[in-house]
């Protein structure tokens, strides 16, 4: 799948994340639409440009967020790496793998954000973060995983030439 295509697609997703998804919190957690989409793309066998897509998505989110620059890009690259490892190791892929990667991807992303903010001097505790931010975020990411997984599969079937 073309990397150029990632710019308008992920740009639109970044706007959706900021304008819509971020306004729908569960406790203090919010769904990470970009993360779920990037994982769904990385898990598709036909996609060979997952790393490029992760960098583009991460950069969009880094530009939009007030977090130190690079946090989202690093998080998405780690999640993509995990997705690619699973994709190579497991012969028959199922939707449960998507949930597994979303779980670890969200954990990595949020713990990285926590660590950076903690080192910057923010008065936040890991217990509170896990309780009010991370777990609700994981729940929300699980909820949007299935529709995004199906949508990504369908779109890729349309845009990727079959053998």
């Amino acid at each position, binding site marked *: 799948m073309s990397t150029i295509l990632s710019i308008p697609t992920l740009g639109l997703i970044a706007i959706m994340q*900021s304008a819509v998804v*971020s*306004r729908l919190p569960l406790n203090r957690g919010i769904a990470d639409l970009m993360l779920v989409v990037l994982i769904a793309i990385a898990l598709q066998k036909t996609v060979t440009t997952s790393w490029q897509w992760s960098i583009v998505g991460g950069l969009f989110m880094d530009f939009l967020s007030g977090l130190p620059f690079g946090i*989202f890009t690093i998080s998405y690259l780690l999640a993509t790496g995990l997705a690619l490892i699973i994709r190579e190791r497991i012969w028959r892929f199922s939707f449960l793998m998507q949930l597994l990667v979303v779980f670890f991807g969200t954990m990595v992303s949020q713990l990285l954000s926590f660590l950076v903010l903690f080192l910057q001097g923010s008065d936040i505790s890991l217990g*509170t973060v896990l309780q009010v*931010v991370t777990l609700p975020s994981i729940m929300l990411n699980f909820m949007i995983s299935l529709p995004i997984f199906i949508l990504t599969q369908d779109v890729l079937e349309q845009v990727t030439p079959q053998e």
Partner: protein
Amino acid sequence: MDIRFPKSLLIIALSLVAIGVLALALSGVFTSFSRWIVSPLTSVQTWVSQQYQGVENFVSASQDIREIRQQNTELEAENARMQAQIVELQQQLVEFEILSALLEFARANPEHQYIGASVIGRDPSPFLNYIIINRGSDDGLRRGMPVVTQNGLAGRVVQVTATGARVSLITDPITRINVRVEPSRSAAVLTGSITGDITLEQIPQDDEINPGNLILTSGLGGNYPANIIVGQITSVRSRENALFQSASVQPVTDFSDLSIVLVITNFEPVDFSPLVPESGTP
């Protein structure tokens, strides 16, 4: 033998017979007879008439149904248009109410100059309570400018681009605002948290503060102008051996439903960094 009656006699006889029959009919002699003859005819006529009407209705009804369906489609389209108009008007009414309240706030605080801005997004990270507004340096916004709503303080501008700006809300974990409590005029520091709650800290133990007291910016520190309402104390926590009291604060602004804000443009935050001694300096 051929008997022939005169024509006139025949006419008279037939007339008499007709008059007789008429007289008998008028007298009611033929009533039962006529019922016996007519009633089957009526039944047959009724059945034929019903069938005809049925066929006529079937032919005309298809045309009526077409008209009704067309009318129904038109009415449904009109209904949808009206519903959309109602939603639009309700949205305009809400915006009008917010703008009226903001105007009221600006009139009540004429010492400041304001620029209105729409909230177009929130920070994608759940760790930061930031909003993104649709005004930037092209509109005269600068870093550090305070942001208010019709109810009181909302936050301050932390990053500006040409056409947009990022605003750190007072609920953000990095927030530290010098405030005072009314009516006791106690000085305190307001802090945000990851949970979105805001807390008053560093209130001297001797100061009397109570639930319901108002919190206003004090202007100390130079980051915010003085006398902007921030919230109200909901509960006070005081320990005997502690140096300071603390209190939970209910903000006056509903941060979950921010749509329009005002940026105070004639406030210059004071930069104290040149006054802070560098490490190693005597």
